[in-house]
């Protein structure tokens, strides 16, 4: 039938609404990641657990490698230093009663107070930066643990998914149960030299990450997928 006779009024039914999945169609996602994205998980890098984050890359990332999970410690773990910062904030307000300081010139007292608040601001900045960059990345090819302690220590550990042997998690304490965060322990077949790896040098510990059960599910599925693809026996 010529096209002219076709009923142009017929409207095609709109496709069912699909969740927004990654921009890169090459990503073959595991079910657990799909569920995380479908459950409305944020994909902003400011969140402590992000599935398929936007615009996140890491050193030595392959062209066809995709970041599946991007994690850092739960924000609640920042409470101790925040409390310390609040205490430090109020100290200059009470030190005017301290007799030794009142004996100093006004210019010097002002300089001390300014330096105090500057130091406090820098302390807060440093803590936020450390929290922000202490990240754990799970890509479709490997797991990466990036540790920055203070200003002078950096430790980056990586292990391919094919070398992972076991993954588990622990939740200890009231806060971790209430806010649902815990340590995810990933054991690898490789023996790595590390200062911070704890008892097992080939062990990755993702400290205080949110929803550890979801993280374990994703890593387990990636391991299964790798096993199917390459016939790895564990």
């Amino acid at each position, binding site marked *: 039938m010529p096209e002219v006779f076709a009923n142009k009024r017929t409207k095609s039914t709109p496709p069912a609404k699909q969740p927004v999945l990654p921009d890169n169609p090459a990503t073959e996602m595991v079910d657990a990641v799909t569920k995380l994205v479908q459950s409305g998980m944020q994909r902003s*890098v400011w969140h402590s657990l992000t599935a398929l984050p936007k*615009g996140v890359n890491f050193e030595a990332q392959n062209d066809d490698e995709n970041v599946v999970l991007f994690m850092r410690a739960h924000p609640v773990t920042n409470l101790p230093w925040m409390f310390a910062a609040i205490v430090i904030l109020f100290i200059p307000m009470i030190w005017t009663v301290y007799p030794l300081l009142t004996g100093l010139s006004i210019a010097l007292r002002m300089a001390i107070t300014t330096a105090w608040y500057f130091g406090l601001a820098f302390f807060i900045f440093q803590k936020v930066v450390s929290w922000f960059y202490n*990240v754990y990345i799970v890509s479709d090819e490997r797991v990466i643990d990036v540790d920055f302690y203070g200003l002078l220590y950096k430790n980056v550990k990586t292990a391919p998914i094919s070398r992972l042997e076991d993954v588990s998690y622990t939740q200890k304490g009231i806060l971790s149960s209430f806010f649902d965060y815990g340590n995810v322990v990933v054991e690898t077949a490789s023996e790595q030299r590390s200062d911070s790896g704890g008892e097992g040098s080939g062990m990755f510990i993702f400290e205080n990450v949110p929803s550890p059960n979801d993280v374990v599910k994703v890593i387990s599925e990636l391991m299964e997928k790798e096993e199917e693809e390459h016939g790895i026996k564990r």
Partner: protein
Amino acid sequence: MIDFNALGISGDHVSFVVGLMLKVLLIMLTLITLIAVRQTTLMDRVVKVPAGKYFKTGAWVFFWSAMILTAMVVVLV
């Protein structure tokens, strides 16, 4: 106000010592902020995130603020 002279200590000497300590402290703080600039750049190289540029800018702001503050304290106090 405490009377340093009554304690047998010159008030000027106390101010001088405290001022000197403050200056040394600020110079050290400036050096630490410079290290923070370098470290933030390294962190951004290891893990590239869109917000990384804000931290780099923040570190530079701290460094230059520390420089200015230190210079002011050294010259004026």
